[in-house]
Structures are given as C-alpha cells and as structure tokens.
C-alpha cells in the first residue's frame, strides 16, 4: 500500500516503522484535538443539572447522571415531538429526492429530449446561487401567500428535489453504457421498465449516498425550519435546541445534553453506514 511518495526507508524496515509510528502519533493527536469538542459535549451531557459555579467545573464532570437529559426533555412538552418532526421531514425529503431526482438525472443523462441541455444548464447555474437569494421570496411565498406556516409541507417542499441531487445522479448515470439501454429498447422495454430494472439496480451505491447525504442535510438544517415554524409543536430538533439554548444559556450540562440529542442520531447513522458516508464525499466532489 505504501505509495511511492513514502518510499525513502523501504530498505530499512526498522526506520520505516518508526517513521510511520511518529506520523501516526501526530495524526492521532490532531484527531483528538478535532474530536475533543465532541467528547466534551458527550461527557458533560451526563453532568449535573446545576448552574455550575464558575470556579468548580473541570474538563470532565465529576459526577455522572442522566438529570440533564431529563431537564432537556422536560423543557418543553414537545421535546420528543421535535425529534419525530425532524425524522418525518428528513425521511420524506429523502424519499422524494431519491425517486424524483434520480428520475430527472436519468432523463438528463440518457433520454434525448428537446430542451435537455438548456434545462440542465439552468440546474447547474442554480447550484451556484447562494441560498440567501431564495430564502426571502420562499419565506414570503410559504408564509404570506400559501399560509403554510407550521406545516410539514412547508418544511419538506422546498428541499424535496434538490439541484445537487439531480446533478449527482446525472453524473453517475452518464457512466452507465448507453448500449445497455439501447439493447433493452430493442427488446421492447419501456423507459420506466429500463429505469426500474436496469438502471436502479446498477446504482445502489450512488442512491444510498444520495439518501444519506440528504437525510443528514435535512436533519441538520436550521435556517428554513426556523423561518417557517412558530409553534413549538412543529419545531424540528435543531430549532428546538436553539430555543432551549436561548432559554437556558447558563446551564452547561443540559445544553450539552440537548446538543447530544440533536447530534447522536447522526453519529449512530455514521457508524452504521460509515462506508457510504466516506464514499459520498468523493462521489460528490471528484466527479464534479
């Protein structure tokens, strides 16, 4: 595995090993620095539900309890609902993105229809536009015109097919040989049939990556849910956490517990599907 970049001491295994050990230790140290805030968050979430007298707290808590989690869930009648809301919104967003973005991506890569290049160009341009441009009009549209404040539809619709996912699937489908589709056409298969029984089975990885990225993105979104929800019952977990933070600014442990509640589901997802997470980064980038 040793790349040619590191071939200096190959003839001296002893030196080679020591050098790698040193590099490894430096990397480990840097990783610990990066991971420290997370460790801090996890550890203190088990701290006591007390106003910490400022001179008394250490790097990690001395007594460990679940009181702070209780404090977070007792803060609002809807704390559990926030998690549920986030989950519903993220799941709906994932399903519609995987279905409709991949269909569009397929059409843009393999079906020769009029206006294809122009429409795809528009989608590429749209990816460059900062979200601030669309937020105000979207807000006016949903809140003033549709009167959809505090509804799941308002939370889900703006992100239900993203330009990025169309782009991602188009890039991937382009790499599938067209001959495969042509021969199925000759056999008399319809486009829907081709899409379902040839394209989708070949694209499991990219669809999984798309689903995961979309899920995490939706779960972690703060801005839009914050704009279109005003009732606690419709908050997502991120909005709930922000509200909790502004109400309990002085309570360290309950705040860390809240942060954990919002972050731990994503950590679990990450450890369960690590491969797709890591692959997703490169699929999204290198092919761009």
């Amino acid at each position: 595995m040793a790349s040619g970049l590191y071939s200096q001491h190959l003839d001296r295994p002893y030196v080679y090993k020591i050098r790698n050990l040193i590099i490894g230790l430096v990397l480990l140290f840097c990783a610990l620095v990066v991971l420290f805030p997370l460790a801090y968050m996890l550890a203190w979430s088990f701290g006591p539900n007390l106003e910490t007298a400022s001179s008394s707290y250490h790097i990690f808590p001395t007594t460990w309890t679940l009181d702070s989690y209780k404090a977070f869930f007792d803060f609002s009648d809807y704390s559990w609902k926030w998690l549920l809301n986030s989950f519903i919104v993220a799941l709906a967003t994932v399903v519609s993105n995987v279905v409709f973005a991949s269909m569009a991506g397929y059409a843009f890569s393999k079906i020769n229809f009029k206006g294809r290049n122009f429409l795809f160009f528009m989608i590429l341009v749209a990816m460059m536009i900062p979200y601030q441009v669309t937020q105000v009009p979207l807000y006016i549209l949903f809140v003033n015109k549709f009167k959809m404040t505090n509804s799941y539809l308002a939370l889900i619709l703006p992100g239900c097919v993203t330009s990025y996912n169309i782009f991602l699937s188009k890039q991937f489908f382009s790499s599938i040989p067209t001959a495969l589709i042509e021969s199925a056409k000759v056999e008399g298969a319809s486009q829907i049939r081709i899409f379902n029984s040839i394209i989708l089975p070949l694209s499991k990885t990219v669809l999984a990556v798309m689903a995961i990225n979309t899920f995490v993105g939706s779960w972690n979104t703060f801005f839009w849910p914050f704009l279109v929800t005003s009732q606690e019952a419709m908050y997502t977990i991120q909005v709930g956490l922000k509200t909790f933070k502004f109400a309990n600014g002085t309570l360290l442990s309950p705040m860390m517990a809240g942060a954990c509640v919002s972050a731990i589901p994503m950590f679990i997802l990450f450890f369960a599907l690590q491969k797709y997470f890591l692959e997703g980064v490169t699929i999204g980038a290198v092919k761009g």
Partner: protein
Amino acid sequence: MAKNKNKSIPKKPFRFTVDDINGYLFIAVAIIVFAFFTIYPVVSAVTTSFENYKPFGSEWVGFKNYADTFKKDLFWKSLKNTAVYTVVTVPCSLFIAFVVAVMIMPFKKKTQSLFKSMYYIPAVASGVAMSVVWLWIYDSSPSGLFNQVLTLFHIPTQNWLASSKTAMLSLIIMALLSGHGSSIIIYIAALLGIDNTYFEAAEIDGATFMQKVRYIVFPLCKPTTLFLLITGIINSFQVFMNAYMMTGGGPDNNTTMIGLLIFNNAFKNGKYGLACAQAILLAVVIAGLTAIQFKVAGDDVEY
C-alpha cells in the same frame, strides 16, 4: 444544442418524439419543484430588490435598495468581516487538509479509513449543536476551557466572544479546529490517483520527500485544490450559523457577516427589499470570485 438540432431539420413540422415525451415525464416533478422553489424565488428576489416590499401592494423604488446598501457602513463592515474570515479560514483549512491527507498516505487501507472517519465525524453533527458546545469552550469565566489553557501558559484570561479584539479570532479558531473531514477525504482520493511512476522517476533523480511533495504531489493536486478553494469560498461567504448562534454579530458588529446581515434585515427588521438587494449583491460577488479563480488558476485545470 437544442437550437442547432432544430436548425438542421427546419422543414419538418414541430412534433414531440417518444423520447421527448418520456424525457418530460421523467423530469416533470423535478422541474415543477425547480420552477416553484428555485426559478420563481430567484426572479422574485430580483424584482423584490427594486421594491419597498409590503404584503399588499409593494411600491417600485428603482435602485434605492442598492443605493441604501452602498451607503450603509454596516454593509461594508460585514463585507470586510466576511472577507477577513474567508481569507484566513479557507487557505488555512486547505493547507491543514492537504498536510493531513499527505500524512495519512503511508498507512494501510484500514488505518487510512480509520483516520478518515475520525476527521470526518465532526462534520456529521449539526451546526447548532457544535455552536452550543463551542460557546462553552469559549466561556469567559476563568474556568472556560480556552481560558484554562491560557492560564496554563500564564496568559491573562480573555472575554473571547464578547471582546471586539478576540470575537472574530474565536470564530476563525473554531472553524480551523472543526475538522476538515471532507477536504481530507477528497485530497486522499486525489493522492491515490497519482501514478507511482512519477515517484519512481523522481527517486532515480534522487528527489527528497519534500521535493516530491513540492514538484509532483502539489501540482498534480491542483485541480482538487481549485475545487476545494472555490467551494470553500462559496460556503464561507454564506456563513451564518456561527455568528448567529455564538456572537449574534457582536460585539459592535465585529462579527456581523453578510449572511447574518441579510437575515437581520429580512427577518428582524422586515426590510425584504433591502435584504433581497444584498442577497443579489452577495450572489454577484460569489460569481465574480469564482470567475476570477477559474481565470487565474484554471488554465491548466480540466473538469
């Protein structure tokens, strides 16, 4: 492209082929969503930027919102803040990611994956959660974590987020220590793609490790660097969460960035027209920066 095709067959009556109909069916939902929630808002943002928005009957004010924006010191200040934040964090992050990626290279695949995961985990947590954590790390009391570190080195404790001297620095440090998981992974992919023959040839010439990095790895990673630079700058110019959650733009607007300024104008002050004008200026600035980078660095880069 579509135009050319129509030109080459001008005599035929305009008719939709089977492919056309299939294509439109496949993109129907996506395009409707795109039209409603992307095209319409962009067009609406442009028109609103020329209006004094009122729920019932906005009035046309021409370029007043733009003129007002340019007259306000706060706009220039937040532009400067955003620029400072970007100029420091983006290149430093790239440098860190590059160095870490190069350091991960000598290991076996399993170890590489382990390091990749470790550096990537912070990216999975939400911005709100991370802000909450960092708020406590920067706690201004002597027992705040960073202040404890300062005390260790006998430096007086700081009022990190509330002092105009350190507020911006604090946000920058947070960005630099928050992991560069995706950049590292992207760099590793680029490094793995470098053909071994380059290194073998360099060895014959007696190149040292640093020379290999300087004359082989660095130039061959240039497309990746450009990609990360562009996306980094685009993201950095839109940054909102840190300033909103941690400093609220303070003290004395020293950490107000464009993203927060637009948010405040729209959703705190209700000046939708002004906010739209500023958002469009932001889009123009980002587009300009991207174009410049392609011009400067892009000649020998293929996409």
